[in-house]
């Protein structure tokens, strides 16, 4: 794992899940943010497969897509389950978040008009409550897989801790989800990451 470089804006956004995976397992990497170190996204884009960020450079080769990157790092550091069925369970939780909730977020934060933003926010909040009720039912034990933390738990933590407040809602009525979030928040490695990371709006 030594020498992996993660490239993204100076923001949590789509890169934070990967940062949490590294942090939780205390594995080091280079956390490169555009416009720091005089590196501009426009200059970097041609080196990426699809012209997007985040990107992960491994042994000189640049890879794209935030969820693919998060999964790869999680596999490398041991957060993707002990067997393929556990991995499938983690994957479906990640997909439920990214395909059933995230698509609304773009318009919530970057909608062209206030009407569009408001409409997206209503839809997002509805989707969040619907999906999180089902996620609550998938927690088996302390975490989604039982006693071991996985990328699924970190993804839920990421969403609840970093994005939910801006949407003006909460999932406090879901006791198992709330447990996961507070456990991770109290975890030594995550606490250190939260304290040390740059403070950014998004």
């Amino acid at each position, binding site marked *: 794992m030594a020498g992996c470089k993660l490239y993204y804006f100076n923001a949590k956004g789509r890169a934070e899940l990967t940062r949490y995976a590294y942090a939780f397992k205390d594995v080091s990497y280079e956390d490169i943010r555009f416009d720091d170190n005089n590196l501009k996204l426009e200059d970097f884009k041609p080196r990426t*497969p*699809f*012209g997007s960020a985040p990107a*992960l450079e*491994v*042994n000189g*080769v640049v*890879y*794209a*897509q935030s*969820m*693919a*990157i998060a*999964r*790869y790092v999680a*596999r*490398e550091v041991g957060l993707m389950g002990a067997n*393929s*069925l556990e*991995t*499938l*369970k983690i*994957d*479906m939780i*990640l*997909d*439920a978040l990214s*395909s*059933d909730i995230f*698509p609304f977020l773009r318009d919530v934060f970057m909608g062209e008009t206030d009407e569009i933003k408001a409409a997206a926010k209503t839809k997002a909040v509805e989707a969040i409550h*619907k*999906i999180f*009720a*089902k996620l609550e*039912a*998938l927690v088996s034990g302390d975490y989604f897989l039982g006693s071991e933390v996985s990328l699924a738990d970190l993804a839920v933590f990421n969403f609840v801790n970093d994005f939910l407040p801006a949407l003006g809602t909460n999932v406090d009525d879901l006791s198992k989800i709330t447990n996961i979030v507070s456990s991770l928040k109290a975890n030594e490695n995550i606490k250190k990451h939260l304290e040390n990371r740059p403070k950014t709006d998004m």
Partner: protein
Amino acid sequence: MPTYKLYYFNGKGFGELSRYLFALGQQEYEDNRFGDDLNWEDLKVSAPFGRAPFLEIDGERFGQSVSIARYLANAFNLAGKTDLEKLKADGIDGERFGQSVSIARYLANAFNLAGKTDLEKLKADGIIDCIHKDIISKFLAFHFEKDEERKAGIKKEMLENTNEMYKKLEKQVSGENSFLSSGLSWADVAFYNFHSDLYADRFEAIDLTSTPKLKNILDHVSSNEHIKSWIEKRPVTEG
């Protein structure tokens, strides 16, 4: 090997990628399609996230000790809305998983179609995500748009976007006729699924002369004997 039961509508849609993978893996499975004999509304409440496709896996480790009735009742707050006894009698047993891409990823790994190394898996995952997020999502936005004027505008944007993305995908082809240098993977099958099942027939013929490697991939997948045989025997559906 576990017993697999796939549940989806009678169409290709988001279920077809998994069906292609079962064909390539030469793996028996139940290809359940909602219809008169299999009611989606009844099953919806017990489907993970209330969506289809979902995959049922009867693995020994989950085995007989997991009572489906208890699992469903706890997991999805059924509160008597579904006839659990009827489900049990149908022989549905085991865990249920949702989300078409994660199902396909699981199958790809099971049949050694996910790439040979972790970095190949990462590359394949990136290509899959690009196809879904950057291409299919825009296609769906066009497909579901009801306003004719907006639809015409979206169509133009979508066709341009698809052409742009195809150029980028062309650069990702490392093998002779596959995205990964180690050979055929689910990234190739997913691209074939999008191009041939979702896209090609609905619009003016796509010019692949500037993306010869992508054309190679399409030819390679479509000439695969297991894919050909599945295509011959699958139900003919519009979508």
